């Protein structure tokens, strides 16, 4: 299988054919069903898709914090683990989720920020103590030094009166400040990969822009890789180098941000882009929408998961075969798409 930016740089994190299923009593939910992508240091990868397409579960799978009854059933999460000054490639899907190695990586090398900064902080512990805890988990600093470092971190993310803020509780901060504090906590161990799971969804537009600016600036300063999970295509266009489009747990299209926005191939990507409101669109013409709704997780369509909503549905093919993510052609190997409009079915299942 071809990969993005192959040969140029060794990617920090490569996810290959990741499958994370949930097994509640009612049946199996294939939340992530064969996701593949990779991200290099200093790059931003956007993962976009509708609610329930498996974006967040993918992120949690990488950190190995998928909640019961979910588990990774297949695939690889290859990460360049830094240990004793050397880089060792480690398959995070295989290590023990609560083991030492994974806990060093989690929060230490791969950190995560969340959608709702209000509920993502404990309501009964001061912000400072939660950041200090994160610092001390991954460094030998004493309480005093850790507290100083926490104040430095708050200043770094643009929070004034940092020392005083350390003693405040989440409810005493505004939404934007809370998300800044959350970012400060994620940065506490200078992670190499930052996963931001809808970091601006709960914020107003002005604050959104500030937080995105902050993330970009921090990436320039610290050189970390960012995986930005969002359903906001505007944010993707602004922030990302590469984009992964997910639908029902599968990657349907993958490519550079230019390719995805100017030359989308998968019908789903095209429809997503068409449904963005534009200042230049004609007045009183209804915004195009994607017909139908996301299928119920217990009732996934056969074949291509998108075929029942797809305007270019090929009867007999799309509803019988499962498309694979493949390079568009030899020349444009940067762009991968999973659609029978571009290649013939390869599997013999019917």
């Amino acid at each position, binding site marked *: 299988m071809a990969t993005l930016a192959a040969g140029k740089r060794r990617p920090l994190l490569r996810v290959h054919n990741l499958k994370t299923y949930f097994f509640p009593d009612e049946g199996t939910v294939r939340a992530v069903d064969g996701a593949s992508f990779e991200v290099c240091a200093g790059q931003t990868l956007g993962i976009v898709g509708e609610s329930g397409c498996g974006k967040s579960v993918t992120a949690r799978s990488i950190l190995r914090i998928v*909640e019961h009854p979910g588990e990774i059933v297949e695939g690889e999460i290859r990460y360049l683990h830094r240990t004793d000054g050397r880089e060792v490639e480690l398959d995070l899907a295989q290590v023990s989720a609560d083991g030492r190695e994974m806990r060093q990586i989690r929060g230490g090398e791969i950190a995560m920020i969340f959608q709702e900064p209000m509920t993502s902080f404990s309501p009964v*512990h001061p912000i400072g103590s939660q950041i200090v805890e994160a610092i001390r988990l991954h460094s030998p600093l004493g309480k005093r030094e850790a507290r100083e470092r926490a104040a430095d971190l708050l200043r770094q993310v643009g929070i004034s009166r940092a020392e005083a803020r350390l003693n405040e509780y989440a409810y005493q901060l505004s939404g934007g400040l809370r998300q800044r504090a959350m970012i400060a906590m994620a940065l506490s161990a200078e992670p190499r990969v930052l996963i931001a799971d809808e970091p601006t969804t709960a914020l107003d537009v002005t604050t959104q822009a500030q937080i995105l600016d902050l993330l970009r600036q921090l990436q320039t300063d610290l050189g970390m890789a960012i995986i930005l999970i969002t359903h906001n295509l505007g944010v993707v266009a602004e922030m990302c180098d590469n984009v992964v489009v997910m639908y029902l747990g599968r990657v349907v299209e993958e490519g550079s941000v230019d390719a995805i926005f100017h030359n989308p191939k998968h019908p789903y990507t095209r429809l997503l882009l068409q449904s963005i409101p534009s200042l230049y669109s004609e007045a009183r013409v209804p915004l195009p929408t994607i017909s139908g709704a996301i299928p119920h997780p217990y009732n996934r369509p056969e074949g291509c998961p998108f075929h029942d909503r797809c305007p270019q549905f090929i009867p007999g093919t799309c509803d019988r075969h499962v498309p694979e993510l493949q390079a568009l052609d030899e020349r444009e190997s940067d762009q991968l798409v999973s659609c029978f409009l571009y290649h013939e079915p390869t599997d013999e299942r019917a």
Partner: protein
Amino acid sequence: MAGWLIRRTLFAFATLWAISMLSFVVIQIPPGDYVTSYIAQLQAQGTIFTEHEAQALRDLYGLDQPVILQYFRWLGLMAQGNFGVSFEFNRPVLDVIGDRFLLTIVVSVAALLLTWIVALPIGIYSAVKQYSIGDYAFTFIGFIGLAVPGFLLALVLMYFGFVLFDANVGGLFSPEYAQADWSWDKFWDLMQHMPIPALALGLAGTAFLIRIMRANLLDELRKPYLVTARAKGLTNNRAVLKYPVRVALNPFVSIVPFVLRDIVGGSVIVSIVLSLPTVGPILLKSLIAQDSFLAGTIILLLGVITVVGTLISDILLVILDPRIKFEARGG
């Protein structure tokens, strides 16, 4: 904070005053008074009693005065530390209650501690391992604990205590210490008698608290801050104990006054069954005899325990949960 504390304490006093009034009224509600039931008792024994003698008794105790006057007389006496005289025991109320009240508190605190110590780990286990065999087992035992009346449990415990452990069952002291002055030996003797009353009185509260803890913790375990804590690199167990358990702890404190009230007030029958020298049996006796000063004092004391318990738990809650301070200031 200081203003809130003062306000809260004043409210507690106001509540106590209302309780004192209510408890006095409640005692007065049944027809007749102490003299009526006293005469009935004497007549049952064949003693002839004249109306004149009855009137003399009523005058002596001031039972003919209006209820309001009697109430204020009672309040005035209490302000001087004199809780009146028990007709039934013919002794000052304080003498009658004295040690019993202390022992009631000791037994109640023991039952409460047992409730906490048992309910906390089981509640956490049941929530973290929801729907596991252990959870089902504890749920089953818990519902039995809720359903079985304390006095029945007391009987069963006494039986097994006697048969299996040859324990000295019943009462709080061995005979040789019952009338003795306080000493370490007597204290140790008391502690040896404590398990059965504590279990019998605490089981229902324990079962209740396990259910509360389980439900609360289940809610908290779904909160995003647990994911944050795990994403930092904490082990799952430490993350759960440090954050959701800490947040779910509120009911452990807020429930104390209610559990305490149930233990103290609900201990009447258990105390009779176990022949505990606590205030429970005295309360029953005084109510039957319409011994108004004694009954009023005991009911008032139960009220004091509840109100003071609530006050303490409120203060603890403010310390435990910073959000509560915020609401008090905002409101």
